[in-house]
């Protein structure tokens, strides 16, 4: 509905929004007496300046891709899944159980089984809210919030009373056997001469996440299920007319959503910690909401937004490591990024659009435009 070229919409507008976020972050930094320029340099250097930095950025991004996709899939069916956090926790449980108790001949088999287990547990945790929504009309927002809390309690119970090896202090499972260790980027990309990604947690799960993006894209826009899912999300009454069962779609959408959230565990639990610790999700479920919303629920958008948040996370960590900036400052920067790129994007878009319209409009008012009839 406008004369603005697509590139301006997908690149220029977010870029200006990011600059605004950076500007306000700089103001906050100045206010607490820090040098914003130095901070920016540290962040960029620390998050994309080396393979090591990338190793962290991509690790975080992997988490956010999974939870972002989870929220996005549910969004397409107009279900607001706030429960990715809990679902990812349960996914961690599933992954931990198979890794601890099944003997694997090779990591690749372990990975496949762990994906299934994580997805299964995550999906199971989403199934109850989904069922209650479909059958009882219980609002999915409430039930998924509640299930986050319940998941916490369940995991504390299991880790403290059941899964914790005796004699250790940490409420965590034992470390997984070597056969269940995933190859890290370090192992995958280092050669004789050069060591890459040393010590960084990024691992093969990243490629699973990328595959998940492609899978979700195909699911949503290429398959019949995706077609029905989106149709239901747009209009429940029309879906009924077309013979699309609301119960089935709600269940399927939430199961897929929960499954994706559960899959996050292959990255943080299996790939990084190599054991299940308390609170292993660390808020990635909530970041996933922001990621999905900013990515406009499109897998590619989710991918980009997850990268952005990976960058902020890792850059922020470096900031805390090398400067005396409180770690909460990173949360502020994240908030500003979400705000400007996600919620206030029209503030940027409208003037840019006006500029394009003014430049793009030739001085011929008699342009015959067919009204859409």
């Amino acid at each position: 509905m406008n004369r603005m070229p697509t590139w301006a919409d997908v690149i220029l507008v977010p870029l200006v929004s990011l600059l605004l976020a950076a500007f306000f972050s700089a103001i906050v930094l100045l206010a607490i007496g820090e040098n914003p320029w130095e901070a920016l340099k540290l962040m960029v250097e620390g998050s994309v300046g080396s393979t090591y930095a990338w190793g962290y950025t991509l690790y975080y991004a992997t988490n956010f891709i999974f939870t972002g996709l989870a929220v996005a899939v549910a969004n397409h069916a107009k279900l607001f899944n706030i429960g990715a956090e809990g679902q990812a926790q349960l996914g961690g449980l599933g992954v931990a159980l198979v890794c601890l108790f099944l003997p694997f001949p090779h990591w690749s088999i372990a990975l496949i089984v762990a994906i299934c287990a994580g997805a299964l547990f995550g999906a199971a945790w989403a199934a109850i809210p989904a069922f209650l929504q479909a059958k009882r009309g219980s609002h999915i927002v409430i039930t998924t919030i509640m299930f986050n809390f319940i998941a916490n309690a369940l995991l504390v119970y299991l880790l403290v009373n059941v899964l914790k090896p005796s004699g250790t202090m940490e409420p965590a499972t034992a470390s997984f056997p070597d056969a269940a260790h995933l190859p890290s980027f370090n192992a995958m990309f280092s050669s004789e001469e050069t060591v890459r990604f040393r010590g960084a947690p990024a691992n093969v799960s990243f490629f699973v996440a990328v595959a998940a993006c492609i899978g979700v894209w195909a699911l949503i826009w290429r398959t019949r299920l995706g077609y029905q899912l989106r149709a239901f999300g747009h209009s429940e009454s029309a879906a009924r007319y077309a013979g699309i069962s609301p119960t089935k779609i709600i269940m399927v959408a939430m199961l897929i959503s929960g499954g994706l959230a559960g899959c996050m565990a292959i990255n943080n639990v299996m790939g990084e910690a190599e054991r299940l610790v308390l609170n292993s999700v660390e808020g990635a479920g909530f970041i996933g909401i922001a990621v999905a919303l900013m990515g406009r629920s499109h897998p590619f958008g989710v991918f980009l937004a997850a990268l952005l948040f990976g960058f902020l996370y890792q850059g922020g960590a470096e900031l805390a490591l090398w400067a005396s900036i409180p770690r909460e400052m990173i949360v502020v920067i994240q908030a500003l990024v979400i705000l400007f790129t996600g919620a206030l994007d029209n503030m940027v878009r409208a003037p840019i659009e006006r500029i394009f319209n003014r430049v793009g409009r030739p001085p011929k008012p008699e342009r015959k435009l067919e009204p859409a009839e």
Partner: protein
Amino acid sequence: DPAIIYDLGGKFDKSFNESAFNGATMWADETGGSFAEVELQSDAQREQALRRFAEAGNNPIVMAGFSFETPLNEIAPDYPDTTFVIIDAVVDQPNVRSVIFNEHEGSYLVGVLAAMASETDTVGFVGGMDIPLIRKFACGYAQGVMATNPDATVVANMIGTTPEAWNDPAKASELTLAQISQDADVVYAAAGGSGLGVLQTAADEDIYGIGVDSNQNYLHPGQVLTSMVKQVDTAVYNAFSQGEDLETGLMVMGIENEGVGYAMDDNNADLISEEMMTAVDEAAAAINAGDIMVHDYTSDESCPAIDF
């Protein structure tokens, strides 16, 4: 330079991270030296921070928290020339010093005081997040109480199951009120930042609170019976002072070496009677002598004095 890594709670957790921070600051103030530090915000950063400091040549590297056990086990062999100090966990590597505290013993002592100070024969315990470490506190405390007054009741509650439990003074206050309505008149808080809510409410309701980790008697003079001090600051201070060539291996901080204990100062001098003083000192001596075995919850995940 030495370096210190705080756990996820952050260095101002009013608990052992803060204590560690105080120890480091104390060293810096005394020697004029400087140290590197970082607050983690994610589990994945443990390894990152350890390697960063090791590679930057920081030595020794102190870390506060049992969650470092696994990463440190992995990393320590990579940096044989660096000495690591881990607090609250045991890592069996040649270049690691493991410092653990007998919190159960210290808690036993404040349990003795609590039992004697209580007029209702009911005392409370408010824990932060329900993890083994906190149960260790609770268990030692309950043993001390029961040993002193077998008729006493210990009301124990945990604030929650998420890390938010460390920062929820509102709920801590409510728990304290709930314990008061169950007749508790001494409440021991082992709850990080939430503990402030416990001590505040205890003061408001005119009963006794017991502080934890550092000496918190000053928070509400005359209302904090004592504090179970856990000398994380000393551990950090010592590590920093001894520098690169500190002794590795297991180091147990107990009553004997004043790693744990109860706090006495002007703020609570009037609250502890001669009789109490005698009793608690006797108990301390008995523990040192091995006459009293305070059961450590984490040794076998069970507690003789209280159920979880």
